[in-house]
């Protein structure tokens, strides 16, 4: 929490002003009872009506001043808290943009989203409250005590007694309630979980005829939650009455002892009335402080989550002195590459070596989990290799800037991902300054033009968030067009034709051929028919190369390849 608030530094002047303004406002609030006691003691007792008017006017001025200070403080605190939220959000977002996929895997996308949005909103809210209350409450408390003492030091001893009693009773009830509140949250989570399981598994539950069982499970969780909730609320029911009793009894004590002191001539009636009001202010501010104590732990949990994000340093960083590749375009080499995901026992890839030249198509095939996609994501340096090296145009990818490296690659992921915006925007994502001509051409090659033209606004049709208004196959074609428009040196297709039907697949691949003549193509595929005419097929099995060569060569040398082929092709086609 404190760590986050360090970033408040640029606002220190505003915060200082807020402090001053809140201070002034608290003072004006405290000054009013004093003025009132003057009215009583001087005006009323002496029957001096003009004096009453004069002080009355003065009080109004003080109240107005207080209000102005408070409004100004509200203005500043809104600016500070808003600015804090803005800079935090921007910092976290920028930081996360630099993460590699590894860090994304570590925290999870959903969690990162909540951290960037909800958690920051949470801390911002607490900051606002703190700026308003956390300063004013102690000030009112201390100010009230000072004023009370100045009115009558001896009578102030009552406050010395009251404050611990009040604080103690709040602490006691909170101490009893807090664990129950936590237990309640756990039980609420459980109830929600049962309900969610009921919803996601509805077909299974009904088909196994276990509705009754689920009903009982829910009932149990519901009952558990309800009984805890009743207990919490019954304890909390004592909170207000106890506080009221303490406050009211204090008033009575003040009147009693004050009366005694008035009798002895140590004090005046107006002072007594002011004193009562001071005592109230002190106690109210104590209650406010206790509310802050409730809020802070919640916010600090959020703050801790934000800090966790900020403290992660991306594994992948640009080299200090970047090397630029001079020779050729599109030469790719894997040199004895080994890679493991963090925490995994087995390396996802080990001992991978091969080279690919422009104009060549390299296909990668293998079972699920054999490391095909992983291999592909090493090329744009989504992950760093553990051993060995990946070279593009003769330079280790770790020695280039990520920008330069990725500019050479046209990447088409397994799961086509589009952004909100028009279709043209989405294709242009591959090349910022692409002309309409280039976009149309890319769409043509990707076999997307036909369905685009069938849409109402053609290339200007809007894509909804997540691309939900186009089909899987259409998404994939757009995602291919996006890579094509770049005219990259290296194409990396990660099982990108899977959602296409046979005809489109064939058309697309023949349209691709002239375009990729000078480029290096890497292609991950499941279907043997897709990879059969590649210049080089790499067969992966559990992260190792089980065979490398053309279809013909592999049919003779590789058992794994033969196995894959025979499971997919009919006898006559194998030959």
């Amino acid at each position, binding site marked *: 929490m404190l760590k986050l608030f360090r970033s408040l530094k640029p606002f220190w002047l505003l915060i200082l002003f807020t402090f001053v303004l809140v201070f002034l406002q608290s003072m004006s609030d405290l000054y009013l009872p004093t003025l009132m006691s003057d*009215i*009583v003691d001087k005006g009323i*007792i002496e029957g001096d009506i003009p004096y*009453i008017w004069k002080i009355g006017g003065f*009080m109004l001025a003080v109240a107005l001043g207080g209000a102005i200070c408070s409004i100004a403080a*509200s*203005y500043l605190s809104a600016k500070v808290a*808003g600015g804090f939220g*803005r800079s935090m959000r*921007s910092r976290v*977002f920028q930081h996360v943009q630099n993460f590699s*996929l590894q860090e994304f895997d570590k925290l999870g996308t959903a*969690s990162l*989203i*909540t951290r960037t*949005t*909800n958690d920051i909103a949470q801390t911002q*809210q607490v900051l606002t*409250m703190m700026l308003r209350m956390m300063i004013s409450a102690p000030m009112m408390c201390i100010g009230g005590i000072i004023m009370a003492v100045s009115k009558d030091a001896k009578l102030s001893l009552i406050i010395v007694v009251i404050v611990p009693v009040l604080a103690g009773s709040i602490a006691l009830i909170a101490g009893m309630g807090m664990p129950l509140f936590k237990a309640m949250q756990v039980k609420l989570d459980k*109830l*929600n*979980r049962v309900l*969610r399981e009921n919803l*996601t598994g*509805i*077909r299974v539950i009904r088909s*196994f005829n276990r*509705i009754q069982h689920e009903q009982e499970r*829910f009932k149990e969780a*519901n009952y558990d939650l*309800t009984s805890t909730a*009743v207990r919490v*609320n*019954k304890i909390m*029911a004592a909170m207000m009455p106890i506080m*009221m*009793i303490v406050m*009211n*009894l204090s008033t*009575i004590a003040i*009147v009693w002892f*004050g009366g005694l002191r008035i*009798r002895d001539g140590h004090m005046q009636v107006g002072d007594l009335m002011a004193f009562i009001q001071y005592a109230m202010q002190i106690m109210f501010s104590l209650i406010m402080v206790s509310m802050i104590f409730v*809020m802070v732990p919640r916010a600090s949990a959020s703050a801790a989550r934000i800090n966790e994000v900020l403290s992660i340093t991306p594994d992948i960083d640009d080299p200090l002195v970047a090397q630029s590749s001079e020779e050729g375009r599109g030469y790719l080499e894997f040199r004895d590459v080994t890679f493991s995901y963090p925490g995994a026992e087995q390396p996802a890839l080990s001992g991978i070596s091969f080279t690919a030249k422009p104009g060549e198509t390299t296909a990668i095939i293998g079972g699920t*989990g054999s490391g095909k996609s992983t291999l592909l994501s090493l090329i744009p340096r*989504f992950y760093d290799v553990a051993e060995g090296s990946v070279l593009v145009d003769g330079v280790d990818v770790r020695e280039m800037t990520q*920008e330069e490296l*990725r500019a050479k690659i046209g*990447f088409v*992921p397994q799961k086509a*991902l589009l*952004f*909100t915006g028009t279709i043209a925007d989405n294709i242009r994502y*591959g090349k910022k300054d692409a002309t309409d001509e280039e976009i149309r051409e890319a769409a043509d090659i990707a076999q997307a033009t036909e369905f685009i033209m069938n849409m109402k606004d053609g290339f200007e049709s809007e894509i909804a*968030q997540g691309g939900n208004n186009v089909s899987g196959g259409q998404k994939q074609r757009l995602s291919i067009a996006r890579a094509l428009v770049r005219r990259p040196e290296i194409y990396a297709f990660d099982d990108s034709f899977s959602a296409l039907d*046979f*005809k489109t697949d064939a058309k697309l691949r023949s349209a691709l051929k002239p375009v990729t003549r000078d480029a290096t193509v890497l292609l991950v595929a499941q279907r*043997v028919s*897709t990879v059969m005419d590649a210049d080089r097929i790499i067969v992966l099995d559990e992260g190792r190369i089980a065979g490398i060569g053309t279809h013909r060569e592999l049919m003779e040398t590789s058992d794994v390849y033969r196995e894959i082929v025979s499971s997919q092709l009919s006898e006559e*086609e194998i030959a």
Partner: protein
Amino acid sequence: MSEQTRRPGPPPGGPRHPGGHPGQMMPAQKAKDFKGSLKRLVGYLRPRRGTLIVIFLTAILSTVFSIASPKILGKAITKLLEGVIAMAKGTPGAGIDFTYITQILLILIGLYLFSAAFSYIQQYLMAGVAQKVVYDMREQINAKLSRLPLKYFDSRTHGEILSRATNDVDNISTTLQQSLTQLITSIVTLVGVIVMMLSISPWMTLILIVTLPLSFIVIKAVASRSQKHFMAQQASLGQLNGHVEEMYTGHKIVKAFGRERESVEDFNKINEKLYSSGWKAQFISGIIMPMMMFIGNIGYVLVCVVGGIFVTHGRITIGDVQAFIQYARQFTQPIMQTANIANIIQSTIASAERVFELLDEEEEVPEAADAAVLNNPKGAVEFEHVRFGYKEDAMLIEDMNIDVKPGQTIAIVGPTGAGKTTLINLLMRFYELNGGAITIDGVNITHLKRGNLRSIFGMVLQDTWLFNGTIMENIAYGRAGATNEEVIEAAKAAHADHFIRTLPDGYDTVLNEEASNISQGQKQLLTIARAILADPSILILDEATSSVDTRTEVFIQKAMNDLMKGRTSFVIAHRLSTIRDADLILVMNQGSVIEKGNHEELLAKGGFYADLYNSQFSGGSIQEVV
């Protein structure tokens, strides 16, 4: 660190704002039929009428006592001042009447204790009532959910249903617990305070009441001004969240195309907009408190001045002024509170309405009174002139006739679509037919008890459903009352026993919420074990084994083959061998059955199946069939 699992997504109703009520001026959620829903909500309270009356009485008493006390305290102060003035004037024998003051103070102590006791009783009782009402409501929702047809669940997101059952019910609970009694006490306080003030001095009361319209004007003016900013803030917040979500989920693409800088630029633009509307909304809503305080202070000053003058004229006593000041302080609070509560009640009624909507949904067609039970189903399935469509005007299946003998295998093939679900929906009577009939062993399924019908079937699907519990419990789910031995037996038959034993806690391993502590393939083995334990006569099976390692895949296929032996099986086929050997192949496209027959027949026909076979099956593994 379960923060992301705990949040059930943004509620469509958007009940309360997190952390207090900063948005007390936000437009409240309006109910469509306020009166009707309110009446119905009140209906829930009716059985607890007795307790509620006690609650209201104690609330009123406690408030009345606390309202009476300032005036009584004022008397003590008056006595003090009288004594002082008398002493000042040097009246012989003058002094402060302490016996009187003691009396007053003792009465006050009594009042305060009573007031506190009553307020405690009221809160205490309300806790019971509120939570029990909510308990009943949750039970009703859950019971209702179990009676709703699948159609309801398929046409809505889980988040939406969950939000009704949790957020909306929570909203009602909080309102019942806090706002209801608050409303009563606020109104009683307001009336009581006005009465007390009038009894002290009608003139001073008038002065104070004059400040009232002033506060309304201020609230109104500020609220209408802040509304605009709140709306702008909400809009940019939505935009910002959308951008974050999109950029984070598309992180790979952003990286691959080197667009980090643009993404950050866009973010900063939205962020800037959010800031500018956010701080304005915050500021303007922050103005309300000081303004109200100022108006309160104007009243305070006027009371002091006018009261002071009145005291000097002897029209009222000093104690009355003290009491009046206390009343004046209590005066604005209930007004603000009632305004706030009015908003809360509106959103509560809107919540209640959403809950009632759910409770009013149409239920499954009830079972016939004389519903039959098939005790030893053989597994003969017949479709007779079946017509079906999810929408009346778009039939997916027109006049389908198939006759499946016990033990036969029916393969279902075709490109991705709704085929698989449709079949399950019809066989298990999750959806009702539009025409024709499905019979099992000659009995129309609509004449069977639902529970009996569903126990005839066993399902092994790709999207495995496991719940948060031990592996033992998850498998035992297949049959109520299965013994541990039977479970282990089933696991062995499903080739799952081995992997389960390698887990640290064996069969007692607890699957976590997403069941992410075992692999996808292992999950599939568990669901197969579950189906084996259930020992159904008819199977619905999905052969797809995506994201499964080769070794597990072999196990799964073996287990499935064993399972299919001797049972009528509907298989969503992915393997050539299954398709070729099937007794009947149903070719589905976009949810409807377009061809049927066996492999040779269909190939000879040269239709869709032949196309599909030639383009896909011969050319590679069958991708995502059905």
